[in-house]
């Protein structure tokens, strides 16, 4: 009984790596599949990375790359189909006992992209912010709860009188502040922020980011920041992971990633960000990534350290090249397969399936029509019979 309880409760500190950094969250060879059997799709492929305590780790990639899915897997919304996720060295993916799950829910909070969709529009701000406190009985008495809620609402720059209002009475920036207050009132250790500023106006973005930074400095919070916009990510992250179609292709410290982007996809992503300077923007060379440049038929690619905690995804030959270039402080030669830029966008699959389905629909419609006519005939016949009998 006693031993079981011990494993269910999270330790105070996570394991420490060779450099003395505390690993708060660790993903180990995580696969995530959607769907079953033949129609299943692997949207996250063999993803491994660590997040250290107190840092901001950003996950960057285009839509459909699996970045949000990873965030949701950490808070146990999406199950992993292989691999495991460890929080402070304790496995939190798959089947875990209820006490541990409650601790995970309390310690890992999430801030969502769209503040109007993620707030219950029929609840007051007071209820939205204190719902977590209710669920975990994190207050001594009613006065303590009110004190906690009022304190956090002032921390995010709103006023206590806002507590009786409903989400629709607030602007987008204020709503995101409420979302932030709801997460922070639980006093979490890790906050997953899924594109928290993409839905906001430019002038509001800085305010929300400054607020997040303030919480990090005051409470030593750790952030997993999910984004698609590299220009902001660069200045708020300690480390950045770039994800492409479910594979992490590069992980490095923010400045290192921008100074020495090794993977061609990272470079195409950086080159696509428009520079707010007319002269530089005009002279910029747009790089288009073509996955066909890699030859992974014989040699399987993997994510490996090329020195100084800079991880790149590639096969033996590519990794060796990245290592020597990084040591010399150079960038790889840009390789591009000759192709029109539009051709790189995916051409939706299953074009063959559609005519078949349409055939089915028409067949069904024909059958229904036939059945209808038959029904009417039978009906008429019966009436006729009835009349004849009379």
């Amino acid at each position, binding site marked *: 009984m006693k031993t079981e309880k011990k494993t269910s409760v999270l330790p105070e500190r996570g394991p420490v790596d060779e450099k003395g950094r505390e690993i708060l969250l660790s993903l180990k060879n995580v696969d995530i599949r959607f769907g079953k059997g033949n129609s299943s799709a692997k949207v996250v492929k063999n993803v491994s990375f660590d997040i250290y305590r107190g840092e901001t780790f950003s996950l960057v990639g285009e839509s459909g790359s699996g970045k949000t899915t990873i965030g949701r897997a950490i808070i146990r919304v999406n199950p992993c189909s292989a691999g495991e996720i460890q929080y402070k060295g304790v496995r939190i993916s798959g089947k875990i006992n209820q006490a541990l799950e409650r601790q995970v829910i309390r310690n890992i909070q999430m801030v969502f992209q769209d503040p109007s969709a993620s707030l219950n529009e029929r609840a007051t701000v007071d209820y939205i912010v204190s719902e977590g406190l209710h669920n975990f009985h994190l207050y001594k008495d009613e006065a303590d709860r009110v004190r906690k809620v009022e304190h956090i609402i002032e921390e995010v720059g709103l006023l206590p009188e806002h507590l009786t209002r409903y989400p629709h009475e607030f602007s987008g920036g204020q709503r995101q502040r409420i979302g932030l207050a709801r997460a922070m009132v639980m006093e979490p250790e890790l906050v997953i922020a899924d594109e928290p500023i993409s839905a906001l106006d430019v*002038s509001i973005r800085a305010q929300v980011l400054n607020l997040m930074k303030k919480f990090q400095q005051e409470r030593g919070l750790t952030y997993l920041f999910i984004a698609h916009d590299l*220009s902001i990510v660069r200045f708020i992250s300690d480390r950045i992971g770039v994800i492409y179609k479910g594979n992490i292709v590069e992980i490095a410290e923010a400045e290192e990633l921008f100074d020495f982007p090794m993977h061609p996809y990272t470079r195409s992503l950086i080159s*696509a960000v*428009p*520079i707010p300077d007319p002269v530089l923007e005009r002279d910029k*060379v747009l790089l288009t990534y073509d996955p066909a440049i890699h030859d992974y038929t014989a040699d399987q690619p993997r994510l490996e350290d090329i020195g100084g905690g800079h991880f790149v995804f590639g096969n033996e030959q590519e990794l060796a090249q990245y290592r020597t270039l990084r040591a010399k402080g150079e960038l790889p030669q840009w390789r591009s397969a000759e192709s029109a830029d539009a051709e790189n966008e995916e051409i939706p699959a299953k074009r063959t399936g559609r005519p078949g389905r349409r055939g089915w629909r028409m067949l069904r419609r024909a059958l229904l029509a036939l059945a209808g006519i038959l029904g009417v005939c039978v009906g008429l016949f019966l009436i006729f019979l009835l009349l004849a009998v009379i």
Partner: protein
Amino acid sequence: MEDRNVILSVKDLYVKFRVRGRELTAIRGISLDLYEHESVAIVGESGSGKSVFTKTFAGMLERNGYLAGGSIEFEGKDLTKIRRAKEWSQIRGSKIATVFQDPMTSLNPILTIGKQITSVILRHQNCSEGEARVRALAMMKKVGIPHAEARFDDYPFQYSGGMRQRIVIAIALSCQPKILICDEPTTALDVTIQAQILKLIKDLQKEFGYSIVFITHDLGVVANIADRVAVLYAGQIVELGTTEELFYDPRHPYTWALLSSLPQLAQRNAKLYSIAGTPPSLYSEITGDAFAPRNPYALKIDTLKEPPMFQITPTHFARTWLLDPRAPRVEKPEGIQNIHEKMMNSLHVSGGQVREN
């Protein structure tokens, strides 16, 4: 600039909305000339009137909105005088076309892509159905749809976001419009796709020769696409100039604030710059300079009298009392001085962007 023809001339335009018994002034006296083959970017916060302004000459103003003054001259016609929907349909879509932000909502989900393009061609151009199909296919190829014939009978949901936006552009350009209004066409797209769409809009401009009015709040996109920039604040143009003038020699404090909030200029681990306060309410009359309450450089006169448009160069105008000869000399904030050098420093080693093989 003088040798180019003015294609659209907006003079002292006022637009008001009736909202639940109250009156809201969305556009407060905008004057702007649009030249042939140029692209003008309109920047500003949400609620500054960017979209409302373009809707006035696209004939898409909401029911409760009305033009309260001014004129819009296009091809010798005053568009503010148009009362009947039929007259608008000869201009909207065929001469002035719009590309909206979200390609999913601007396409009809239950019609095939081919049908949607041909219906526009059939409506505005006298041609047979077969001819329309040929033109639609040519348009699809122009905007870079691979295997256009095979994709002709597909539905919007079978296209990716970037491809859908290409189709919207194809529809907009199918009648060779004189003016293409782009209302944040890339905000909903990924950066890599955004770069492709911007390139497409610019490449097709060379071929079709339309003028672009590009609404955006991303200054990076402005630098990419615009020849001239108009900065909008509370329904007024506060600064107008060529893109170089606006980035390298901004004069209005609001433009300074916009440039200061660029993340590329931020220092690591320092606070990001944010503009204090909120835009003014457009329900009440604004006295003086609308930006004054948020402006750290505000003068006393800003609260009393509305500043006129001062001319700095033949192409550069700004609406701020700081340009008055009697005003004290105020330098733009340190953070945005030598913006070009700062950008170079901040990006010089960023391999993908500037340093190239």
